[in-house]
């Protein structure tokens, strides 16, 4: 496992390091003002110096995004399953899914706060809204594309809907499901940050807006650093789980 990560990880790491070096030299060379784009060294410095100030924000956001992602993906999978198993529902509700992705946070925020207060609930709703959609769409497509032959076999063998679902459609849709999960994981951290705009008193999003409003660009970038790191972590974790879970088809791939 560790060796594996090393073997696969060095290339992206190299690219990142290269980018950081270019960024650093560019900001030195063109004398980009720190408040527009601070050089990586300043960001690094602030990351270390400010740790004790912001680490509770970090935990808050991690918690929020993990819970949000778990709920969001459960909802996403559940919705996909329901829509798949009940075609009438699917036709009727599909447009609502799209609508749900097009309600701007600016209008949703006051409504959510007015209805649910400042607690964690409205925040979770926002993350869920962000996360569930790609999962639902991808999983639905996965369900739809099962092999015709295997489906025929299942029918002939007298499988009921539940059996067809669990023995054929679900395992077949797993790769698509993970495709959706990975997209959603990438969004979940930003979703959490956005949800913190719904009145929060801690979290990376909160930290970032404060930093931005007091013109501390370096801190804004520290915040971004963590958002990005978290997303990469989530993504990596999911890819790992994917490799474990979708073992059979992974073998088929090699």
């Amino acid at each position, binding site marked *: 496992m560790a060796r594996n990560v090393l073997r696969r990880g060095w290339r992206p790491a190299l690219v990142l390091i290269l980018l950081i070096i270019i960024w650093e030299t560019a900001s030195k060379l063109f004398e980009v003002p720190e408040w527009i784009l601070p050089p990586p060294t300043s960001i690094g410095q602030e990351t270390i110096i400010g740790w004790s100030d912001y680490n509770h924000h970090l935990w808050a956001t991690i918690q929020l995004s993990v819970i949000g992602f778990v709920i969001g993906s459960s909802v996403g999978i559940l919705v996909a399953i329901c829509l798949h198993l009940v075609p009438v529902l699917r036709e009727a509700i599909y447009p609502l899914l799209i609508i749900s992705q097009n309600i701007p946070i600016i209008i949703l925020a006051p409504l959510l706060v007015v209805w649910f207060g400042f607690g964690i609930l409205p925040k979770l709703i926002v993350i869920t809204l962000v996360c569930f959609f790609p999962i639902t769409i991808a999983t639905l497509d996965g369900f739809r594309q099962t092999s015709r032959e295997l489906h025929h076999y299942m029918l002939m063998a007298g499988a009921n809907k539940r059996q067809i679902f669990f023995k054929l459609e679900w395992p077949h849709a797993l790769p698509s499901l993970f495709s959706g999960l990975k997209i959603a994981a990438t969004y979940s951290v930003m979703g959490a940050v956005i949800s913190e705009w719904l009145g929060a008193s801690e979290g990376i999003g909160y930290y970032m807006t404060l930093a931005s*409003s007091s013109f501390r660009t370096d801190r804004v970038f520290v915040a971004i650093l963590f958002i990005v790191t978290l997303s990469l972590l989530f993504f990596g974790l999911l890819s790992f789980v994917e490799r474990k879970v979708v073992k059979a088809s992974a073998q088929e791939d090699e």
Partner: protein
Amino acid sequence: NDSEQGKEEKSADKALKEVSVVLDWTPNTNHTGLYVAKEKGYFEEQGLDVDIKMPGEAGADQLVASGKADFGVSYQEGITEARVQDIPIVSIAAVIQHNTSGFASPKEKDITEPKDFEGKTYGGWGAPLEKAVISSLMKQDDANVEKVDIVNMGDTDFFTAVERDIDFAWIFYGWTGVEAELRNEEINMVYLTDYTEKLDYYTPVLATNETMIEEDPDTIKQFLAAVTKGYELAIENPDEAAEILIQAEPDLDADLVKASQKWLADKYQDDAARWGEQKLEVWKNYSTWMYDNDLLDKPLDSEKAFTNEFLPNN
């Protein structure tokens, strides 16, 4: 962890009344009085347990109006527009007596009076109000607003905007202007109040909703009593006040808070008899100006928009 324990103790020893305040956006020196009152225990003395919140995208006015928050930080133009739309919020104190906002530009652009706006590019957020304000100022100088190129710069901040394309923008001197001082960037200011009385409106103000006024006037009184003490401390002792704000919100930039606090200290009360007092004339002037400039659908009933009733009499 500490503050949590503190909270528990507080609610344990006496039943404090829970009250919430939403800020207009991120915490800044406009809000110092609130933080001082909270940290110094002034609210507690009045029997209140105050929770200060950032509204984020939710917007303070709607939250106050709907009763989700008891008090909020708002602006005169916001309350004016809101009341015209039948949103029941009322201003109960002016945080700063005079309008400290104005049009800022980097020194080298050489914009020192409204006349100089001609041929320049203004960066705003796209509200019709802006054009009306600029037009009003320029009329005083016999200049023509049509010669100003008005660009919507969205969320972009002043310093970024003037790096490119934009020549001048509308800022609060107490925050952005002070930041410019700290950065040693020389800027020219054209203050609204220097050119027309009508634009000397209150910004920001504290607000509550009509239900609160009807049903719980005592709480408003208690709240304002504590807040007044808070702002008075900020007036007398800006350094200590700044320290308190920084303690409460360590993610703010300390230098900026200190400098800004110093600059604002004598602007809170200024020439008024007491902190927070509002004049009918100011409300009338501004809403009339807005109505005349087609910024309101109907005239405002100014008397109902604000009240001095709950300010402590000193």
